């Protein structure tokens, strides 16, 4: 009797796994960016404010401890200088980028024009609950003009792109997520490839030809080829290169310029869809 029950349960389990497997295969052909249904939005509408409140309380608590109990002025000055430094670094990279472009007589937007790109500032209210996949939820959504596929940056460089939009909230797919792919290029060599997330803190640059002269420390920028990310935004730096004796490509590991563990504020770049 006991064996019969167990046998029935295993059969149920096998059928369940088979059904899910078939559905996954069907689902695999779809893109990640999908339109949300009304009940998806309703659930996020109810749960996101709790996430927001919880994160605000935590961040508020951490700030109180940081700012009032330890070196109020020094902390503020330091934060200002670090932020200023990051902005200057980013400007420097973009200026270098402009020089490269000018030298090849391309007619592109000037640095000032780039800064004039309209952006929506947003706060991070929650992070991905899973360990391999990397998304962030922000407190700006459809009502604020955020749309699917819009690029997201901060002072340090590329953060990711919008994959889901709710009324007041949206989700960002970080460049470190294994589902993320961005067209990129090496600033010095101009070699082009695709940045893919590795599910940890690093990314890899795919499809870089084996003969491309890439070195550790080289800066990786958005190429602007896919018409999503504006050209010349810093993605990260090369930290490791592996060239095999055979094959036509090389494996390049990138450390993103953005520290995703400490990210609190981001800018959604408003681009024409």
């Amino acid at each position: 009797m006991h064996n019969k029950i167990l046998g029935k349960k295993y059969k149920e389990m096998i059928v369940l796994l088979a059904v899910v497997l078939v559905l996954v295969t069907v689902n695999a052909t779809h893109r990640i960016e999908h339109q949300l249904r009304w009940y998806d939005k309703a659930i996020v509408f109810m749960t996101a404010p709790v996430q927001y409140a919880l994160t605000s309380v935590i961040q508020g608590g951490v700030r109180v401890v940081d700012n009032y109990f330890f070196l109020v002025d020094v902390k503020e000055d330091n934060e200002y200088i670090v932020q200023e430094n990051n902005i200057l670094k980013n400007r420097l990279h973009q200026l270098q980028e402009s020089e490269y472009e000018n030298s090849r007589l391309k007619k592109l937007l000037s640095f000032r024009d780039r800064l004039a790109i309209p952006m929506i500032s947003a706060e991070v209210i929650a992070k991905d609950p899973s360990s391999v996949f990397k998304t962030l939820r922000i407190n700006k959504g459809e009502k604020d003009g955020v749309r699917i596929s819009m690029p997201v940056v901060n002072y340090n460089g590329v953060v990711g792109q919008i994959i889901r939009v709710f009324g007041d909230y949206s989700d960002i797919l970080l460049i470190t997520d294994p589902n993320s792919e961005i067209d990129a290029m090496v600033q010095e060599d101009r070699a082009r490839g695709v940045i893919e997330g590795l599910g940890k803190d690093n990314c890899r640059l795919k499809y870089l030809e084996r003969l491309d002269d890439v070195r550790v420390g080289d800066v990786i920028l958005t190429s602007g080829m896919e018409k999503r990310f504006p050209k010349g935004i810093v993605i990260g730096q090369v930290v490791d290169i592996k060239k095999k004796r055979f094959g036509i490509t090389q494996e390049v590991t990138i450390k993103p310029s953005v520290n995703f563990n400490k990210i609190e504020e981001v800018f959604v770049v408003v681009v024409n869809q």
Partner: protein
Amino acid sequence: MNIFLYVCTAIMFIIFQASFLNYFLPSYLSPDLISVFVIYVAMTKSFREGVLFTLFATYMLSLNTSVGFLNLSLFYIISFAVARYVSLNFYTNELKYLFLSIALPILASKLFILFWLKLGNIIVFAEHFLYMLSETLITAAAGIIIFKLFNLIDIKTGQINLESIVEE
């Protein structure tokens, strides 16, 4: 616990994980609360109820991550199936059993994710595996406490407890 409490627990686990745990802890030191939830329902609820709760938790999670509902459901159904198999065949009342019965399904599911992602090169895979191992052990340790708490609530409210699954 009744259905309402299970639903609330799943939602609170996701919110807590996304807003609190991931704010303070790196992912490899943060327990995977949804896995704990799935393993608990696999071990204590009937097959159909367990699957429904698992799919509900998975759906809620899919609204907070980059993976679609169907793919996520496969990962958690693997956890569910392994937890169910372990609880049906090797149940004892020892702490080490409980630890292993939480750790094994999580490990199985996460290994599947790694293979599914095809994180090709062996170094990346090895790094991920270390992270995953750390997360699994921490989740199993946290799971013991959560299981005891759940079981206590179940006993108090006269609901099913850990032993009942074997007698089913």
